Each structure stands twice: as structure tokens, then as C-alpha cells.
């Protein structure tokens, strides 16, 4: 069964803390509640998108720098 990580607010989605750093998490990585999986930039603020459950990252449903919507599924955990 897969569990989705949902964007709570709209903005630009980033998978890395900064362009020259590695991605927070990749497919197949284990995540635990509170782990950062990406950033959403809105109003010149970066919101840290965190996993709320533990699981293995099955995949991302949006690309780096995509504009995402409030309530949109960002990644799936299995």
C-alpha cells in the first residue's frame, strides 16, 4: 500500500536544499516521520515538506522546480 506526501500549500517545489547539494531523498530511500523530502517556495519563504509516516520512497509525482498546488500529491511512500 502506498502513502502520499501532500503539499499543504502552493508554490515551487525543490528536491534539493540548494542547487549544488544532493537531493534530500531519492527513490528507494527509507524515510521517517519528520524527515525533509523537499522544499516549497512561496512568498520568498521556503517551507520544508516533511514525511509524516515512515516508508520507502516509491517515487516523486512532480519534478524539481514544478509549480505545485495545495493538496497535490508530491511523493509516494511504500
Amino acid at each position, binding site marked *: 500500500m502506498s502513502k502520499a506526501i501532500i503539499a499543504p*500549500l502552493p508554490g515551487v517545489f525543490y528536491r534539493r536544499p540548494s542547487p549544488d547539494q544532493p537531493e534530500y531523498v531519492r527513490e528507494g530511500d527509507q524515510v521517517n516521520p519528520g524527515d525533509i523530502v523537499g522544499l516549497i*517556495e*512561496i512568498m520568498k519563504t521556503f517551507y520544508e515538506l516533511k514525511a509524516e509516516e515512515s516508508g520507502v520512497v516509491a517515487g516523486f509525482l512532480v519534478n524539481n522546480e514544478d*509549480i505545485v498546488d*495545495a493538496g497535490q500529491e508530491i511523493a509516494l511512500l511504500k
Partner: protein
Amino acid sequence: MIKVLKPGLQTTVQDQGRLGLYEIGMPPSGAMDQFALRVGNMIVGNHPNAAVLEITYIGPELIFEKDTQISLTGGLIPPKINGVPVPMWETLAVKAGDVLSFDFVKSGARIYLAVEGGIDVPLVMNSRSTYTLIGIGGFEGRALAEGDVLATGDLHERKVAAGTRIEESLIPTFGRSHEIRVIVGLCSYRLTEESKRIFLETEWTVTPEANRIGYRHKGQRLQFVEREQPFGAGSNPSNVTDLGYPIGSIQVPDGVEPIVLLHDAVTGGGYATVATVISTDLNRMGQIKTNEKVKFVSVGLEEALQIRKENQLVLNKIAENIASR
């Protein structure tokens, strides 16, 4: 006293604004949704200009350190007290030790927390509103941060019974596409006739660049009428000789991405302002989220004034309803 356990994304102290200072280039700031501010204060029996917290997208977590009454108005960011959902648009009694928190935003973009007496921060140029760009007003000129402690003031005028609720039909609701009424002008003469039509016919999408300063929209490119560059104007066809920018004015730098200037915006400059959002619809503008749709609808000045009058009548009716309880 109210202690900030978590600040939320951008939580600021706002009142009706820092009005009448355009001549020194000072924008008004103040609540983006003035309807929600006004009603929020009514529901707790405050003076209309008592300061509230404006909460955007992600709510804070706050602990009340004494018994008081509060209200939550504006966009639907579902509030909870001690983890239990509580209604908006209603006088709520809270006890010392109660914790207010919020679920993820459901509709609208901003919710307002009014507290009996108002949030007490120093007056700066006669207002408690936060203007974060230059760091004045509000709580130390900035958005709230973890550990801040807010005092409440003495702008409480009358006791309102807990459980007092606004009539459902008077509560605004917010979808995902919005009709925003504008008065075309002052510099709409700079647009070609076709672009004037396109401006009003396009369903614009709000970009991630949407905040208290302004909202930027994606849609179609607009074209300007050919002209000889006037003295004092920039070389881009979207430039004019500098003029004042009223709150709600819409400029289209280079013909791409119209920007609606809002409460924290620059007060003047050299872009052609093609239309101005009517004052009543600025409230709705403040409840629009990135990615939502906006259509600008042209109205005349008489109609705009009539709409303002009707909005005032709704506020009067709400005030009467509360007073009659």
C-alpha cells in the same frame, strides 16, 4: 499574553492600515482581507481598528496564557483548540493554557485571529500594521517567530456572548476561480484595443509570486500602442512618466504577467497602470492562492461605489445582529 509555539508560514500583526501617507511613499499595509478583519473584531467586541493576526497558508500554534475570547474569520484554514476543531465566524471562549492550531488550508489564503482588546504592539505612524519590507510596525517589524510573546491591548469595547455566530448567508466563501472587478484606467490608453479586450477576456493564473506586495498573473502577452517615448518615461512601451500607484492598480511590465499591487506595494513608479481593482474586491484578492484563476471584470465608477455601499450594508447588518444578542 499569547505565546508563539510555532509561527506558521507568515503570521503578521495587522489593523486597518497606515493610511494617508502616500506623499512620503508609505503604503498602507494592513489586513489584506479588511472584511474579515472588521467582522473578526466585531465578534469579540473590539474597536474596528484593533490589531489582529493575519495568518497565511500555514497556521501558527499559539498558547493563551489567560482566559479570553477570540474569533477566526477569513479563508478556511481549519482552526483547532487543544486539537479539537472549532468553528470560524463565532465568538470563542478560550482558557489559560489552551492551544490554538490549524489544519492545512481548505479554501482562501488568509485567516484572521482577533483577540479581545486587540494585539498590543507600539503604534508606528498611527498604525499597528506590520510592513515587513522596511521592518516597521507590528511585532518588531517582522512576521512572528517561535518564542515570541504577544500582549493584548485595551481596544475592547463591549462584551459579546461566547457562541455568537454570524449568519451563514453573510459569510464569504472562496472557490478556485475568481471574478475580480476593476475600473479600467488610468493608463489603459497605452494598450492596443485588442489587448484591452484580451486583458478582460483572459483567465489569468496566479503565479508563485503572490504576496502582500502584489500578485503576478500568467496568461497572454499584451501589446502597447506605438508611441514616441515621452520625457521622463522609460524606454519600454509599458513605461509612462512616473505616476502614483493606487492599491489594487494593475501594471503589466513589458506586456507580460500583469501585477496587481496590494497593501505593501510601492506607491508610485513608471509603469502604465491599465486598471484598478475596486476596493471591495481587494478583500477577495487577499484570499486568492497561487495557481488559482482570476478574471478581471470591468465595472464603472458608479457601480464600484454602489458595491462598496452594499458591502458596508452587510457589515452594518452583521454589527446589528451581534448587538441584538
